[in-house]
């Protein structure tokens, strides 16, 4: 079975409400969502999108459709300078409630997926703080 253009294959299909769109290059988004599902069983909280093969206009259209179809209010993108971020920011103009989180990581999504009782913006801010805290360099030899 083939996936429609722009949708990343393999994201789970449980009956959870979609709470976010994860949009990235290649299979980045599908990989993150599958990891969320493996760890929490809540992968269906996200829709994964890839920009492979899509023009700038198609990317914006794909994202708008995904937001409309899912009712999600938040988009997690991979690159701050990437085409998904540009598209999401463009959509913010007509959807002022839309929240965009850039440079998403697995710790960010894992935190967000469990923040289901708070407003999306608060969940996003909490998750981003968690993501910042998760970044580390481990095992750096001490100087001298």
């Amino acid at each position, binding site marked *: 079975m083939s996936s429609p253009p722009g949708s990343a294959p393999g994201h789970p299909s449980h009956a959870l409400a979609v709470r976010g769109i994860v949009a990235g290059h290649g299979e980045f988004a599908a990989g993150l969502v599958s990891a969320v599902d493996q760890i929490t069983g809540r992968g269906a909280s996200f829709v994964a999108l890839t920009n492979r093969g899509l023009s700038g206009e198609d990317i914006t259209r794909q994202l708008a459709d995904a937001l409309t179809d899912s009712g999600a209010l938040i988009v997690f993108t991979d690159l*701050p*300078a990437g085409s998904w971020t*540009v598209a999401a920011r463009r959509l913010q*103009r007509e959807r002022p409630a839309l929240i965009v989180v850039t440079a998403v990581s697995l710790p960010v999504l894992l935190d967000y997926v469990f923040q289901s009782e708070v407003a999306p913006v608060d969940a996003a801010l909490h998750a981003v703080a968690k993501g910042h805290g998760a970044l580390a360099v481990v095992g750096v030899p001490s100087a001298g």
Partner: protein
Amino acid sequence: MARWPSSGSRVPVELVRIDDRMIHGQVVVGWGQPLDLRFIVLVDDAVAASDWEQELYRMGVPPSMDLRFDTVADFAARHAGYVADPRRGVVVAPDIPTLARIVDAVPAIRSVNLGGIHHRADRTQRLRYLFLSDAEADVLRALAARGVVLTAQDVPSARPIPLDDVLAGRGDR
């Protein structure tokens, strides 16, 4: 193997990239980091007239990278200055009609990178990242006949594919 200059030489600003996503990860990171690009000139009349669109593209570009927005006419007037700039830079155009206008206005441009033109109903896939209509292919052939060297290459590590091979279906899809 990419035929772009090694890290010790300057990227010729005459090399214009066509990319319908314009400023995005492949340009800013994929090309920008290995080539140490310090400026990008986006030539698009509509974006040049919209502060809001410019802000969209500025958001993700690192502070070390200067992002300029020109109309085709402005670019023609400023081209000599860009060429003389000691920093490394690239020029990005969103589509083939804009490219044709740029080459008309700046005959000194002798090479063009076909970086990304994606699917549209009237286009045929030529490469994984390159779709062209018959009319667009004719424009590119006409530019080549005028001596402009056109090669398709999405990222620096990819093999540059000459226009003839692209149009003959000899590139990788």
